[in-house]
């Protein structure tokens, strides 16, 4: 103290200046750190690039090698760049669908996430949960040109998570029931109509399930791959509340569906049917996506699979309290949370999902269904369909359009997949057990609710 007081005034000024320099340096460092942390540095000259990158996979989303993998995208890019000459659009080619989620995650962790990327339906939840997707709410609200009404409600809802829109649908495919017409004809049964019910479904299955060669083993089956989820969807069951805090397994509709599943399983007398049996022509029904129907209906893929029998598709059978309703698989397009070109990315996103010409080409170059109602129901496509599927049920496009529009939209929430796995386990337990279904659903429901509660308390 005495030492310092002894020093002169100039010394005091010197220390003040020294501290001032340090404080200034500190502020400068903090600002640079802030720029680095928030990716704001990417806006600085030298770092800025007017390039939008799109994350996409090389093969078809619907698992069919059709050779048109980048055709639609490239066409779209050319047209978009014409409209927006100041921005360049790029994509990385050669990533197969199987590696795509891993590639995308890796890019994200490296901080090199594409500005815009396709999100496969099964991974939408994971990405939304990881918080890597940009919320679209503000874009949707501010963009007067944008109208969510144009999309199929179900397809549009597919891009929402926890009540927030994170993605726009690009193409979709509803679940439909494949019917082996040859089996039905052999058994003298009529092809079910698009308004058919569980009773019709059960009736046909019971008639079909039998031992045809007389060796004592059942070799012809009613259905394969029909799950409790399909039954729940078509009986109007709401399994969880919006926020995923409660499960409604004790609901009467759910119990009806579980009993129905039990009755269906009894028909096979313990024999576990694989989907290979359907390809061999031994099963009457199998739920499949529309895309699969389209892929294998046309030559030459039809030769590869399902060639030994006549087949068609119908809607899913309606439960007593539901309708001919099924689920939708949707390929969505989402924006990266870290993009610095959000407005341009939004424009491109809107263009890819909402341009009629582009969407209409989905019918030609992909196996999915366009997500715009007006496109599916246009006269042009009516003709296209009538020409391609005249023999089948799908010749009438209205059935497809209705299936998509009415498809179930499940409210998704944090850890949804694990919650569903819990329900799956519960349903299996109920079906395998011999006890009273009422008692058992109450017990299982309590377990699931317990699970949901602990999950909430963790996050």
């Amino acid at each position: 103290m005495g030492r310092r007081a002894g020093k002169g005034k100039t010394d005091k000024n010197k220390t003040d200046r020294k501290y001032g320099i340090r404080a200034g340096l500190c502020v400068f460092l903090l600002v640079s750190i802030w720029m680095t942390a928030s990716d704001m540095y990417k806006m600085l000259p030298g770092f800025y690039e007017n390039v939008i990158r799109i994350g996409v996979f090389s093969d078809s989303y619907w698992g069919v090698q059709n050779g048109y993998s980048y055709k639609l995208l490239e066409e779209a890019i050319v047209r978009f760049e014409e409209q927006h000459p100041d921005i360049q659009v790029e994509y990385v080619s050669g990533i197969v669908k199987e590696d795509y989620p891993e590639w995308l995650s890796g890019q994200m962790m490296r901080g090199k996430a594409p500005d815009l990327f396709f999100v496969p339906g099964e991974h939408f939840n994971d990405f939304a949960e990881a918080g890597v997707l940009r919320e679209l709410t503000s874009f949707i609200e501010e963009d007067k040109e944008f109208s969510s009404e144009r999309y199929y409600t179900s397809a549009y809802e597919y891009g929402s998570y926890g009540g927030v829109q994170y993605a726009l649908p690009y193409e979709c495919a509803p679940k439909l029931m494949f019917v082996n017409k040859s089996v039905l004809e052999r058994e003298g049964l009529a092809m079910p109509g698009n308004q058919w019910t569980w009773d019709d479904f059960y009736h046909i299955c019971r008639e079909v399930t039998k031992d045809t060669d007389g060796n004592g083993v059942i070799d012809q089956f009613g259905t394969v791959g029909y799950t409790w989820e399909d039954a729940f969807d078509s009986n109007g069951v709401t399994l969880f509340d919006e926020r995923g805090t409660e499960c409604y397994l004790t609901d009467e509709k759910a119990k009806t569906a579980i009993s129905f599943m039990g009755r269906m399983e009894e028909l096979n007398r313990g024999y576990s049917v694989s989907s290979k049996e359907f390809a061999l022509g031994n099963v009457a029904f199998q739920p499949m996506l529309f895309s699969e129907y389209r892929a294998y209906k046309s030559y030459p893929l039809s030769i590869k699979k399902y060639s030994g029998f006549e087949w068609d598709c119908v809607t899913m059978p309606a439960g007593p309290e539901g309708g001919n309703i099924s689920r939708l698989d949707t390929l969505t397009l989402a924006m990266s949370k870290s993009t610095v070109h959000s407005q341009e990315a939004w424009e491109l996103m809107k263009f890819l999902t909402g341009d009629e010409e582009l969407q209409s080409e989905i019918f030609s170059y992909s196996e999915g269904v366009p997500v715009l109602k007006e496109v599916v129901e246009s006269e042009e496509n009516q003709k296209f369909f009538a020409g391609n599927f005249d023999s089948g049920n799908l010749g009438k496009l209205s059935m497809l359009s209705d299936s998509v529009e009415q498809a179930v939209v499940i409210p998704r929430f944090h850890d949804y997949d694990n919650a569903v796995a819990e329900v799956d386990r519960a349903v299996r337990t109920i079906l395998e057990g011999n006890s009273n279904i009422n008692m058992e659903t109450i017990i299982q429901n309590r377990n699931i609710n317990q699970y949901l509660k602990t999950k909430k308390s963790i996050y």
Partner: protein
Amino acid sequence: MERERERFPDLVLSTMKNLNMVIILYMTMVTVYSLSGYIYENSAMEFLIRVKRLPMEPWKLPVLSIGLYLCLLLLLSIRCKNKSHFLLKTILELGIVFAISYVLNFGYAGMVLLIIADTMSYFSDMKQRMLLVTSICVVYILLDYDLLSAGYHIVSTEDCWAYYSREVQSLLLGVRNILNSLNTIVFISYAIVMILTEVREKERIWGLNEKLNAANQELKMANEKLEEYARESERAAETKERNRLAREIHDTLGHSLTGIITGIDACVMLVDIAPEATKEQLRAIAGVARQGIKDVRRSVKALRPDALESLDLKSALIQMMEETQHSTGVEIVYQIESALKGFNKDEEDVIYRIVQESITNAIRHGKANHVQVQISRNFNMLKIHIEDNGVGCGNIQKGFGLHHMEERLDMLKGSLSYHGDHGFVIDASIPIRWGTEEEND
């Protein structure tokens, strides 16, 4: 020795700073390695699904954590003199610690101890220090992964480090915990050193205070003794003077009077028998009386001011004023219109004393630097007017000086008036009684 003791806390503090740097580097590098591992081994998706959150890009971790830590060190090196600056600095430091903690996935927050250590050196007031340290501690406690993860969804260090095999993971976490404990230990030693230094300092100050008190006491006693001594010496001088006067009276007046009485007694007896002898005798007695009065005058002379002894009144006054002016630096302007001759000794004394006392008062009480003295004759009255430019005196309390002057003037049938509104003004009048006195003299 003293310097070394002063430097020791600084040494501990810099050890702490280095240790924290090591911990931050360690945490960052281990995390960076694990995150890069996830990316290169194609388990990024699995990681994302598991932790349900996108971690920071690996290259950013060391850049941000080291950058922020440098900021913290810079801030810690600034000494604030101003309270609001200090508060701002502390809040900024806490913010930076939060940011570093965030970058480290809230796996380490020991930097808070650095801030506490720095803060401790600021306040001597225990209450303020406790308040501040407590609030910082609250922040420290809140910077805990488990607590924060209840409110916010964050990736934990353990989640990232799950990349390593179980054994390696326990080893890595163990090293982190050891480093963390080391940091705490260093902090505790710093606190102990600080407290010890402070206690020692307090003891030293207390000891100095004690010494000062003792010295004060001694000084007081010495002062009292001195005062007592002064009083005694005054008394002694008084007694001595009294004795001298008594001796003087006895030796001179007593001696003469005794001679006169004896002589007169002899004359009474002789007057009828031998008138001539009586006359002779009376002449002798008159001689004795004259001798007596001479002696009395000599005695009185011994009590008179020195200047008057050797000089006439006017010269004595001038000399006195000149000398005062010379010795005090106060400007004294005098104007003496009379020759001041023909006064008897006691009158001269009074005049001399009044002038001297007034000038002394003007200088001592009035703090004047200019005194004007005017002595003039108006018919048969001698007028003395003394005026100064000092502070004056609104409410005059007659001290010994004024009282004495009045008394002396009274004896000479003179008068005194004074007022102290602007400086101090004294007017004295003394009747002149020339004639008989002159003859006597």
